[in-house]
């Protein structure tokens, strides 16, 4: 067997030439074991950092007031005052945000890639601004300036969430578009008689699916977890409800709501990834290259 770190060509050449060299196998194994151990330690620490708070939250949400194991908090959640209103508002905002973001950012990103490639740096800078500027500054600036009809609608929040989600959507789409030869694909489709709309729907979007899905998951997670803007605009979304809900057992119910939000996002992510994987598997099976 060719040893680790020795090119197979060199190894064969040395074997043929009868060169008797010490095999660095044991040393390499030792090094690899030490390396694996470090990797395991890093993985363990990082895993603990993320999982311990989640585990603690989950444990707490599955306990009653006396500390015994119970599903009571989760069972009480749908009937908790204001929960269903907050839940559906969050869902509506998430859907509107997703639709507006995709409609706005997909054509923009494609246009920048196709016609204004020199503007990509500027676009990156613009889209990163919502991360640099705190949400409280954005909402404090928007509220006095927005007309009354906009302030009286919860969907003003959706348009603000579009701004907040811009870095995630733009970067996902930018990465997706960079991974394909966009210009050639568009030109090929156009020369074959496809209109711009058909080029977009039948050639570009199917090849952007993974990027679109990741952009959607990130946007959904952001909308379902945003508190500052919703609170200042006086709309009770799920995060606002979690903070405002206050009863004797509210801690357990609030934590259960947070856990459900987290699990809901994971489930959504898992479904999307599974659909994507099963599609690729199907295509491979069809062509017999499984």
């Amino acid at each position: 067997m060719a040893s680790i770190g020795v090119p197979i060509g060199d190894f064969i050449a040395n074997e043929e030439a009868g060169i008797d060299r010490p095999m660095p196998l044991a040393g390499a194994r030792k090094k690899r074991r030490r390396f694996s151990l470090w990797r395991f330690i890093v993985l363990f620490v990082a895993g603990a950092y993320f999982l311990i708070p989640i585990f603690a939250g989950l444990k707490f949400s599955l306990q009653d007031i006396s500390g015994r194991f119970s599903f009571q908090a989760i069972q009480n959640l749908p009937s908790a005052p204001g929960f269903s209103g907050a839940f559906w508002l969050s869902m509506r905002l998430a859907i509107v945000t997703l639709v507006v973001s995709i409609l706005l950012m997909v054509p923009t990103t494609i246009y920048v890639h196709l016609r204004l490639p020199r503007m990509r740096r500027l676009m990156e800078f613009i889209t990163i601004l919502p991360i640099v500027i705190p949400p409280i500054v954005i909402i404090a600036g928007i509220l006095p300036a927005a007309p009354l009809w906009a302030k009286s609608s919860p969907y003003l929040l959706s348009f603000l969430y579009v701004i907040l989600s811009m870095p995630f959507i733009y970067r996902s789409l930018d990465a997706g578009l960079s991974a394909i030869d966009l210009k050639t694909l568009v030109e090929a489709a156009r020369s074959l008689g496809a209109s711009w709309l058909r080029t977009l729907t039948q050639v570009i979007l199917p090849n952007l699916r993974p990027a679109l899905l990741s952009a959607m998951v990130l946007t959904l997670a952001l909308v379902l977890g945003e508190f500052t803007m919703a609170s200042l605009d006086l709309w009770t979304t799920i995060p606002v409800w979690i903070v405002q809900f206050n009863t004797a057992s509210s801690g357990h119910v609030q934590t259960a709501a947070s856990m459900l939000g987290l699990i809901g996002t994971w489930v959504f992510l898992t479904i999307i990834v599974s659909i994507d994987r099963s599609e690729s598997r199907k295509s491979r099976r069809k062509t017999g290259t499984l």
Partner: protein
Amino acid sequence: MTNVNEVATSLPLTHTPPASGSRVELDQLVRVYGSVRALDGFSLTIEPGEFVALLGPSGCGKTTVLRQIAGFEQLDSGRVLVNGQDLSNVSAQKRDMGMVFQSYSLFPNMNALNNVAFGLRMRHQRSSQRLAKAAEVLEMVGLSDQAKKYPHQMSGGQQQRVALARALAIEPQVLLLDEPLSALDAKVRAELRDQIRMLQKRLSITTIFVTHDQEEALSMADRVCVMSKGRIEQMATPAVLYRHPNTAFVAQFVGVSSRVPTLYRGGSVDIFGQACTVRGDERPTEGAEVDAILRPEDLTIEPDPQGIGFVTHKSFLGATTRLVVQVRETPVRIDVRSDQGEELELGAHVNVKVISRDVLVAARVENSATQTA
């Protein structure tokens, strides 16, 4: 493995060829990018069913010409006419051009069959009809067994053949080939080159082929258009282009040549002590310093210990061997029979003689004494 050429010739051609190819006229095309004139009054007429290669160095404007014909870019001025119809303001979608790109351009989300059927779908053909036709064209390029495969499951050569099938399936007015072979390895490139030429002849489709590879251009095209700085240097058949280049640029770009500095006197130039008449209508002024441009086969050598030059390099090319002979300060390339070449050692002294009746001359280039192409 199936020989693609056999496939192309042996299959019955049920794919309807156009009655005859389209006539393409490019009239005074101008395209300017900033301060660069990519096309500078470029005019060209291509006869129906003709295979024309646009050949030139990088940046000479050949791809710009193709993109103008395809409708991917706006002209600053000039007209593109196909069968007399002005397409200058018609979008790429409606020009009815089949194009094969340099990079692999198959749609990654579609298998080979659907890629080929895409153009037919855009023409609203019924599903059964378009799939049958796509299968037929795929068979024509010898890839019917790859119909269900996705681009990432095919080799580069197979992908380019599918791209060719996709372009041919729509029965375009003009087939545009933008260096489709440049990303392929030598063996596949040679196979696909022959297949493209064979299909083009059988379908009588007007074809414009952009390449920087002179071997491809000379071996495939009916006529070759050599371009430089957005203009045509010379448009001729491959044989004429090689044997009778109009300009020094063409002589140097097409084939191999050596520049030998000399003086023009009395209608002839002196090359290694031999008076040679000057080819072409344009004559230099009397006494002008010029470069004679010589092909390797224009010269011959005789071993001579007192000879004027000595062999500095030998390249075995099969039947012939190419020698580089240093004559004073000028390296000269000369082709000899390989058995003769084998007898000559590096450093051997030789005499060099010009065997062609006349030679092409060009204005002296500063470092021509050391220049070969």
